[in-house]
């Protein structure tokens, strides 16, 4: 068993709003290991970004506030740390990459200066900064790094900007990298290269990577483990292989069906009914129950919320009826064979990829 670099235990954070506290993170737990990637997936507003920001204590306060839990970095609770110590932790230990590469770079500073800034603040003084900057850019796969030093962000493509941000994040050798939707703003071909880069760097540098995404395709391509977030809670955690083969939480199943665009007998795409709940006004009981097909037959779902339960090696799920299918409706998300009038996209892709 690899040792955990970062353990998040029962983390809670909320935003004050006119309608009362919005519990964006409501008891989230997971751990990160060196050289491995955990994907945190969920739809918008499920609390992924709030979790990402709460870990390095970057949640904007006000309106945000961490209200409980622990963030243990090699056993040290970051939430207990003196605020003055945080800047050293950020960057040197935990680095972040955000969704919008365009707005994360300073438009009036050269690329070289921005990377140098990161190199300098976290390095013993006196070192050869220029060489370190070039090395950082090269490591992030930026072609002709010497040429980039004098360029401004607007002269770079979206993919290159994201690489510069990765170079900045990794310049001072962090052990944890939090990437919040790092490829959402990019085109698929660019996305594929950035994901490969992250996977490569993660293994090469022994980074513990928390990859936040809404795209299960990205998860399957990059992560070893997955945590599904719904309305502020992690409802299922599993190794990637297990998860895609046999997800247990009805919401995970719904997400997977949606991502695979599976169809029902009538040829319609399978849907998750309804919409994400209002985090200031959560349903009682299991927070998924108003949308859950299983819950319609089970009274327990409206009762006390289900606790996290072990469902196999490294597999936990928060559901009273894990793996159960609603009556009259077999779960079809896994179907490799043609589902509905057309073969599943996955199969066709595997064929075309093999050309």
């Amino acid at each position, binding site marked *: 068993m690899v040792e955990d670099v970062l353990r998040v235990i029962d983390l809670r954070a909320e935003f004050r709003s006119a309608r009362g506290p919005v519990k964006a993170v409501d008891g989230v737990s997971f751990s990160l290991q060196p050289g491995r990637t955990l994907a945190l997936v969920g*739809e*918008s507003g499920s609390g992924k970004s709030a979790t990402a920001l709460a870990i390095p204590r970057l949640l904007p306060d006000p309106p945000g506030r961490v209200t409980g839990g622990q963030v243990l970095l090699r056993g040290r609770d970051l939430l207990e740390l003196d605020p003055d110590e945080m800047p050293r932790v950020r960057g040197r230990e935990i680095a972040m990459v955000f969704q919008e590469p365009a707005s994360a770079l300073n438009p009036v500073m050269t690329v070289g200066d921005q990377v140098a800034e990161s190199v300098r603040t976290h390095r013993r003084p006196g070192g050869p900064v220029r060489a370190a900057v070039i090395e950082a850019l090269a*490591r*992030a*796969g*930026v*072609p002709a790094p010497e040429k980039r030093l004098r360029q401004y962000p607007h002269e*770079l*493509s979206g*993919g*290159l900007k994201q*690489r510069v941000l990765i170079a900045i994040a990794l310049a001072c050798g962090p052990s944890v990298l939090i990437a919040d939707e790092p490829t959402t703003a990019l*085109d*698929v*071909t660019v*996305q*594929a*290269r950035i*994901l*490969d*880069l992250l*996977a*490569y*760097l993660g*293994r090469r540098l022994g980074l513990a990577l928390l990859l936040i995404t*809404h*795209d*299960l*395709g*990205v*998860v*399957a*391509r990059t992560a070893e483990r997955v945590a599904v977030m719904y309305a502020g809670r992690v409802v299922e955690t599993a190794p*990637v292989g297990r998860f*895609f083969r046999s997800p247990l939480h009805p919401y995970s199943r*719904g*997400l*997977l*069906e*949606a*991502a*695979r*665009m599976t169809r029902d007998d009538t040829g*319609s*795409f*399978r*849907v*998750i009914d309804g*919409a*994400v709940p209002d985090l200031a006004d959560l349903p009682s009981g299991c927070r998924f129950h108003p949308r859950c097909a299983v819950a319609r037959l089970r009274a327990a779902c409206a009762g006390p919320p289900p606790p996290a339960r072990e469902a196999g090696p490294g597999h936990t799920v928060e559901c009273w009826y894990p793996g159960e299918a609603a009556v009259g409706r077999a779960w079809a998300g896994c179907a490799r064979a043609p589902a509905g009038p*057309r073969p599943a*996209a*996955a199969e*066709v*892709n*595997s*064929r*075309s*990829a093999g*050309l």
Partner: protein
Amino acid sequence: MLVCEDLVKTYRTRRSVGPARPAVDGVSLGVAPGETFALVGESGCGKTTVARMAVGLLRPASGRILLEGRDLARMRGRELMTLRRQVQIVFQDPAGALDPRQTVGGAVAEPLLLHRLGGPSWRRRETERLFRQVGLGPREMGRFPHQLSGGQKQRVLIARALSLRPRYIILDEPVSALDVSVRAQILNLLAAIQAELGLGYLLISHDLAVVRNVASRAAVMHRGRLVEEGPVEEVWSRPAHPYTRALLKAIPVPDPALRPEPPSSPPPEPEADPVGARADSCLYESLCPRSARLCRRRRPRPERADHWVACHYPLILRRRDDPGPPR
């Protein structure tokens, strides 16, 4: 049929010296009633420009837009108004496409009012009917856009597009801004409407999984030009253009078994935009693994067929004697 013929559009930019490269360069495509034709490509390749020309929001520099054989560009006044009604558009960002100060009921009734269709009570009933048709209740009619979820807003915009009883709808990234769980709801709705009304859809998308699952034909666009077109099945299973194949390979498939080998060296980012690319070369040339001298010298032109490609060295070789379907 809604037909775009050899559309060209160049945006004037302040920065560039000399003539800019066209944003859309000789794009031709046709949408038949009841059919979904997809235009796929990455951001900035010119998809939205084509969409805006097809609904008449932009005037092409050259080329024609034919609706049932009649050229939209030659029409003026009333005639144009009536013809315009037959092609409607649904935008990508449902929040932005609704006027924040107008109730959504007002937004759906607006086209009826604008085209002076029916009286107030008929319009009200018609609006209610449209709301029901897209799966919204009359209760929602008095709401403002910010009171609805993204999926509900997109339903409102679909109702609005339907209000003029068009025959074609341009769907410009209709589900890109929506969560996956809502995406299926909207796609089902669009399919049901198409089945009921026999509409022709021009689906513009960068999401190849969506296109694969809802379109019958697709054209792949790259830097303003179409590089390949054909039945979706064909293009997906036997992509002929190197760019199409790269695009298909890049889609992250939700199945870890299909994960590509992890790279053993940092995957490099190709040089951004080879500005030097000449109009008379292949614009994929700098990235193409098959590129050869001919590719830099001559712009590949398609040989029109049911499944065609604009490439000097396509991945599937056509038999010399293959006549293909008539042009």
